[in-house]
């Protein structure tokens, strides 16, 4: 089974202080730690599990500057066989549509049975790339996949809906599936495999190599342009307590008593 996994190298922002840069369109990334997008980590694990079961190979693709190779090496250490990085100054400012066009141009000439993408990325959260890639390729797809079984030329997948509901859908291969977190338990790479992954070659492509013009990517080639980032206004003016913990805890318990939730 030939599987392609599309991965993104993203900043970990959950507990970091985010600073908007002078352009107002981006954040300062110098002090941030980057890693593979969480959803993509589950997608990669699913691909490696399929390879272990059915044979074949796993190719990972990312779009980004040289730093993004850390994410590709992590994927190689966890079981991917080949890695491709597309990079070009003109790509900066691309939305999901522009990214889908780049991926399309990379994968259309490759042989594959399955393309796995994370259901979304933790930074921009557009959640469109997988479906757009499938639409450009003209092949079936399914999103928010929580379970999958491979049958004779088909993938039977469980899609996550709302309120605890799920639906089962069958798609013919080759197909694109977007993977939801929790579908598996992503493995840790061993020290040995991390070492081995360092030796592997990563093929690096620029825009020319994927037959795209500069105005087909970046802001010019995008549908969505970020005009200005800002810190959200807090709608609910709750009281934020910090400082001496015993005082804070006493205050909270007082609130609970006043509100009649302590019985």
């Amino acid at each position, binding site marked *: 089974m030939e599987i392609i996994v599309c991965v993104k190298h993203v900043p970990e*922002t959950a507990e970091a202080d985010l600073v908007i840069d002078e352009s107002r369109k981006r954040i300062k990334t110098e002090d941030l730690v980057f890693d593979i997008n969480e959803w993509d980590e589950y997608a990669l694990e699913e691909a490696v599990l399929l390879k272990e079961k059915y044979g074949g190979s796993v190719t990972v693709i990312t779009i980004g500057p040289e730093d993004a190779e850390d994410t590709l090496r992590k994927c190689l250490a966890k079981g991917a066989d080949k890695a491709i990085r597309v990079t070009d100054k003109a790509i900066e400012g691309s939305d999901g549509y522009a990214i889908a066009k780049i991926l399309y141009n990379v994968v259309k000439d490759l042989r594959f049975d399955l393309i796995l993408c994370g259901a979304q990325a933790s930074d921009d959260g557009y959640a469109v790339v997988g479906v757009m890639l499938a*639409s450009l390729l003209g092949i079936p797809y399914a999103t928010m996949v929580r379970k999958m079984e491979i049958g004779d030329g088909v993938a039977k997948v469980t899609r996550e*809906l709302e309120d605890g509901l799920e*639906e089962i859908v069958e798609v013919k291969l080759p197909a694109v599936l977007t993977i939801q977190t929790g579908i598996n338990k992503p493995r840790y790479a061993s020290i040995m495999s991390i070492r081995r992954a360092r030796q592997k070659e990563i093929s690096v492509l620029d825009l020319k190599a994927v037959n795209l013009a500069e105005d087909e990517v970046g802001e010019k080639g995008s549908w969505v342009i970020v005009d200005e980032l800002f810190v*959200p206004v807090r709608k609910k003016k709750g009281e934020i*307590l910090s400082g001496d913990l015993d005082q804070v805890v006493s205050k909270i318990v007082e*609130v609970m*008593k006043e509100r009649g*939730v302590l019985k």
Partner: protein
Amino acid sequence: MREILVLAEHRLGKLRDITFEMLTKGRQLALEAGATLSIALLGYGVESLAEELADYADEVLLIEEKRLENFNSEYYQQVLSHIILERKPEVIFLGHTSYGLELAPALAIKLNIPIVTDVIDVYFEDGKFMAIRDFYGGKLQAKVSLRKSTQYIATIRPGVFKAEKGKRRGNVNKLSPPDLTDITYKKFIELVKPPAEAVDISTADIVVAVGRGIGDAKNLHLIEELSNVLGGVVACSRPIVDMGWLPKERQVGISGKTVKPKLYLAVGISGQFYHVYGMMNSELIIAINKDPHAPIFNVADYGIVGDLFEILPRLTKKILEEKSAGASSQ
């Protein structure tokens, strides 16, 4: 006449909340833009839903076909493409939901219409179609503009706009479905309902919810102890279920349960919208998180910025003391 078209979302014979939420925003945008508001309702045996929707828009386009009985994005795409090409609505709303996400980006590619997803607001400004949306899990937001076009697609985040009662009566316009191409490469098999549960967190008065901040399954006892002294139930955010530390029936959020307890204590939960959707209508929300910029504090009545490992034992002890003091004074 400019037109705003909303795709009605329904499941198991009921219109979903997101449909009415989109209609609230749709009405507002139609008023601002001098446009009409219409609803596309696709399904089979859904005429009563069309009547219900007629209160909310100028026109309900009802398209019934056996193959639209269950959601299959391919058939939906065929029908919607047909409607969009024919009527040329300027703005098309779909839910940022499991159905909407399966459909909207494909529709955008097929019809070459710019799309923006997961929006919390949209508006026209100097002839440009603009949207407000989250970035970095809601720690920041951005004003974004769409590339100039005659049509735009937006997927609307659930739980942002309030469903309002419809005020006017529109017409239900039954359209005959276009000739559908049979789809063999994508099949709907079945809907799966969640299994019977040991605990129903949605009926509890006090919910103590835990998130990624707890760090390890072996620390969960801190949450259980606090929940016990409060007489509450333990719930959690998605990562805890993903890691297999608690069962899915304990998950609060868009793909799990919606709760409205008297007290919701969010411990080590960052507060991404998937989670907040399921708890934002709780009567009293207290959040504990070490990140002062965590989005959970945007919905909390009281927030404690600090280390949960220091706070939880103190809080549990203090509540126990209060309760025994209260008991002995009675």
